[in-house]
């Protein structure tokens, strides 16, 4: 498992790459089009390089505290106290649900799955399948209650967005396939 410092450095390096990319891309624009992005990217790059230097010169316990915070004495105490844990609030409650990285991977997976369903089937069928699947998988409700809740929730969403707000729905990548069976 990577240390907090390594993680922080990795993220900072990604931000550096973003700023450098913006600088390189901006050079292709005309003088007026790059008037704001170019100097801002250089400024951002300086800031993040300063952050990298600072976070690597300090002890692990003070990792999140930076130069400006020291100047303003703004959030040092709370930063240090939170840094000691390194995990989001509620760690104790979620400790029995596996390591943090696994829960994070599952969280990203859940969102990606829902997105995939929307792209494949369109929003409303995706909402139905996702909600029902989620409730059954977590065993929050019994099979029947979960189904009833999902039907009511999906109907409410349909009435709100499609009937009341008259949003033209996207029918999903699979629509041509479904049409063949119509």
């Amino acid at each position, binding site marked *: 498992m990577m240390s907090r410092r390594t993680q922080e450095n990795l*993220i900072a390096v990604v*931000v550096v790459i*973003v*700023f450098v990319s*913006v600088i390189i891309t901006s050079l292709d*624009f005309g003088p*007026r*089009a790059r*008037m*704001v*992005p170019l100097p*801002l*990217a250089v400024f*951002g790059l300086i*800031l993040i390089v*300063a*952050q990298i230097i*600072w976070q690597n010169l300090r002890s692990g316990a003070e990792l*999140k*505290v*930076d130069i*400006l*915070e020291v*100047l*303003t*004495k703004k*959030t040092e105490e709370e*930063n240090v106290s939170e840094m000691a844990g390194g995990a*989001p609030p*509620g760690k104790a*409650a*979620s400790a029995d*649900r596996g390591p*943090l990285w696994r*829960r*994070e991977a*599952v*969280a990203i997976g*859940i*969102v990606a799955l*829902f*997105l995939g369903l*929307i*792209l494949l089937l369109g*929003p*409303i069928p995706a*909402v139905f399948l*996702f*909600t029902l699947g*989620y*409730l059954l998988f*977590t065993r*929050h409700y019994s099979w029947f209650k979960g189904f009833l809740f999902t039907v009511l929730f999906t109907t409410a*969403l349909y009435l*709100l*967005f499609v009937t009341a707000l*008259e949003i*033209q*729905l*996207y029918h999903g990548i699979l629509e041509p396939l479904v049409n063949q069976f119509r």
Partner: protein
Amino acid sequence: MFDAIITGLVALFTPQAILFMIIGVIYGLIIGILPGLGGIVAMALLLPFSYGFETAATIALLLGAHIACVWGDSVTSILFNVPGASKALPLCFDGYPMTQQGQATRALSASATAALLGGVFGAFFLAFTVPVVRPLMLALGPSEYLMMALWGVTIIATFSEGSLLKGMASAALGVFVAFIGMDIVTATPRFTFGIVFLLDGISFPVAMIGMFAVAEMMKLYVKGTSIVDRSIIKENSTVMEGIKDAFRHWGLVLRSSLLGLWIGVLPGVGATVGGLSAYAQAVQTSKTPERFGKGAVEGVIAPDATMAANEGGALLPTLAFGIPGGESMALLLVAFIGLGVVPGPEMLTKNLSLVFSMVWIIVIANAMTTLIGLCISPTLARLPTLHVNLMVPTVLAVCLVGAFATRGRIEDVVISVIFGVLGYIMDKYRYSRANFVIGMVLATMIERNLHISLSLYGKSFIFTRPVTLVMFIFIIVTTVWPFIRNWRRRREQGKA
């Protein structure tokens, strides 16, 4: 004038006008609470129903919905850390921490009362300052608008979720995201990488849905418990506390309302700048600025009073010059034309009773919204206690469908998910998401007004325009002051 005030009020006491106002307010509250949909969507959807009815009733429907949306937007910011619209972002800074501390009812009722006070103040100020404001409005140009936007940016220096260096870098990243798409000044496609969809840019509501709503649901799943666990934190606040808070901080409400009104009067500046500036001035003028960001009720009161007063201010250029103060006012202008009402200087002479009808609509709609808000606050305060297994699928569903509904484009759903993951990472490593959105919202305004100022007034426009120079000095003073104050306080503590 007194006749016009009375005639304006009487026009609203017809069954149709009363019914339309009630429908508008309830509808506005629902739309406001839905993420991604705000006052503009609410009014756009009502436009087809704005013909064939009484003029006052139609305006009551449209304005009522728009005003109720303002408080609706605040609700999700306070309860879920999900801004209903970009202007409601400052409510997240202190409203959400209050919810986490079991003070949701107090935050919601303080927000509703501040909105009422701000709205009423804005309406009356609008009514009595119409002749005075006109020359003031005409005295301001793009360089002054640039300074207004820069003032909004100074909030980054006064408030940051974590590290200030990271916060400033986040704001810069937000600016670049706003620059994705066709440059409005030179028509150059920037950072689009040949993707046609990106030519239209990234939609603010979509980015915010991802950055806050999707990321918050991911956080909630990882945490494994509801936003507020009632077995640990009991709801320990009442509606009365919130009402008292708003009245206790009457000075802050007054300052914030004046600010909102002023920003509303300036066409194109918008309530987002107003809300952020109100938050900044609340922090800068507080004797205990260290409480902000951790659940200070003043951080809820100031933006709400500003946003409510902003509506009254935005009506002024719309009515007096036919120049809409924002997108919502542009839609109102369309409705006016449909109703045969021609905005312009004549509105303040021949149609003065209609102007006062609008002033009364703002007052009554704000009062109705607050009354409903205060009644439902205790119920709404229970929403964050919903079990995580119910909260995650339902909020994700509403938000992703909301992201799609914003522009009716499936790519926006993909964008909101990308921003969701980005928001989670930023939150985890304390790159301020709020600063990112502030940078995003203000970027276009800053760039556009900078270009226009340079073209009109030359490179040293800051020093050749007296009002600009005064505003510039004001920004520097208000930005540097908290640093000096903290430094002095530390020195005094050191001596003690």
